[in-house]
């Protein structure tokens, strides 16, 4: 059973436009959510997080939105830049330190 789902394996966006990556989860007990970015041959890099007491968190070009009733979170990147091309994972905490990851979405930013 997949507790965290990223239903889009890939996404292609034009440079300068907005990239929107989506993530759905099944367990309403999850209460802290993170996004990681991964380049080839590197480990995942932390991007941004959000607690369930909030519905939005911003950090520069990155904004994460949380819809608890729909069990859905999204990552908005605006404006998208070529260096944003990577695989993006949403991750949720289950227990103190166990992260549960989605399958990832490969984002490609086209010039």
């Amino acid at each position, binding site marked *: 059973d997949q507790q965290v789902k990223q239903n889009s394996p890939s996404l292609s966006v034009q440079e300068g436009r907005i990239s929107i990556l989506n993530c759905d989860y099944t367990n309403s007990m999850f209460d*802290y959510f993170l996004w990681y970015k991964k380049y080839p041959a590197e*480990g995942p890099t*932390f991007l941004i997080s959000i*607690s369930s007491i909030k519905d939005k968190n911003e950090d520069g070009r990155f904004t994460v939105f949380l819809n608890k009733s729909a069990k859905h979170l999204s990552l908005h990147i605006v404006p998208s830049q070529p260096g944003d091309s990577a695989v993006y994972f949403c991750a949720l905490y289950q227990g103190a330190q166990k992260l549960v990851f989605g399958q990832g979405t490969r984002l490609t930013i086209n010039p």
Partner: protein
Amino acid sequence: DAGVTQSPTHLIKTRGQQVTLRCSPISGHKSVSWYQQVLGQGPQFIFQYYEKEERGRGNFPDRFSARQFPNYSSELNVNALLLGDSALYLCASSQGTLYQETQYFGPGTRLLVL
């Protein structure tokens, strides 16, 4: 400051062999977690160690074991390797076991089992 380091970067083994992977956390971090990432999937939690004690275990067979040393570095051991153990093994460190601490990942060890 150095990030999380892992060794070796790549490894090729044959079925039935044993492998040991190593991880050094960020300086000052006392918690180390191990994840397995197979191709096309997100990382899956294997173990978490804090102050040399196992604090969490994922759904992996007993062939997988780990330990943490007094300097907070860690080793992951996998016995009786199977073809399905071929994956990227990621180590992550965090300062402690406080809930919702950000985990910082190393570059991983890519294991190929033939």
